[in-house]
């Protein structure tokens, strides 16, 4: 589990070095790979621990004060959604990861709305779309990992 946290942190860092495509909030969510993997291979408590600890540590190391609130709300919402969907057991981990990605963005938007009262509706379509695409990518890779790596 500690290894997963370390891996998630490294992936977060690697991702922060990839230039953003110009729209804030649009990113691949590489660290979600580890969370989805942990959710399927280790269990939901471990996945939650990894995700929340990662957010906290990464904000501490690479982020600024405000980024913790955004990341944490996104990660928490995304986690709850993915855990519930996994329990429901009607979807494969691709769709679970997609919902996770979209919810992560939704959580951040909600936090922006709560903190700044910004009119964020304009952002929703872009972030739903990007969350879906990133979620598919991460989900497919996670599906392969879950299948191949036996603990």
């Amino acid at each position, binding site marked *: 589990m500690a290894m997963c946290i370390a891996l998630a942190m490294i992936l977060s860092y690697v991702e922060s070095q990839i230039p953003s495509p110009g729209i804030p909030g649009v990113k691949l969510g590489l660290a979600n790979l580890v969370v989805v993997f942990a959710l399927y291979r280790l269990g939901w408590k471990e996945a939650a621990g990894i995700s929340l600890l990662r957010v906290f540590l990464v904000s501490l190391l690479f982020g600024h004060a405000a980024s913790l609130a955004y990341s944490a709300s996104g990660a928490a919402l995304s986690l709850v959604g993915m855990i519930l969907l996994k329990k429901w057991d009607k979807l494969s981990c691709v769709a679970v990861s997609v919902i996770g990605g979209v919810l992560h963005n939704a959580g951040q938007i909600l936090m922006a709305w709560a903190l700044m009262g*910004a009119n964020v509706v304009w952002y929703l379509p872009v972030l739903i779309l990007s969350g879906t695409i990133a979620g598919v990518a991460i989900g497919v890779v996670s599906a392969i990992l879950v299948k191949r790596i036996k603990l």
Partner: protein
Amino acid sequence: MKRLFANKKLLADLCVILALLLLAGGLALALRLGREAGGQAVVRVDGRVTERHSLAENGVYPLNGGSNILVIENGEAFLREANCPDLLCVKQGRIRYNGQTITCLPNRLTVTVEGGESNGVDFTVG
């Protein structure tokens, strides 16, 4: 060759993805149809309004003690400069329709286009 996904779940997955894409498309369409050109750029720091500038007049305004520079040009507002390293607010481009917002997270600053009536009386001073 093993299948990665059970077929039943693959179908459900595709439905979820399709539903989300439709939702994004529908929202984008609804926002586009419902938009109207706004009258003024409203600047907020920490959620409180600090400045309003009419979109009808061109101008350059340093915001928030100079942390960001707002430019109004041809009925459009955009941030030309900012003191943050990523310059995401500058990359957000130009806004002209009601409700459109430029957000600068590091400086907790937003610029929103509001109000259809562009000659806000509370701003003709002198």
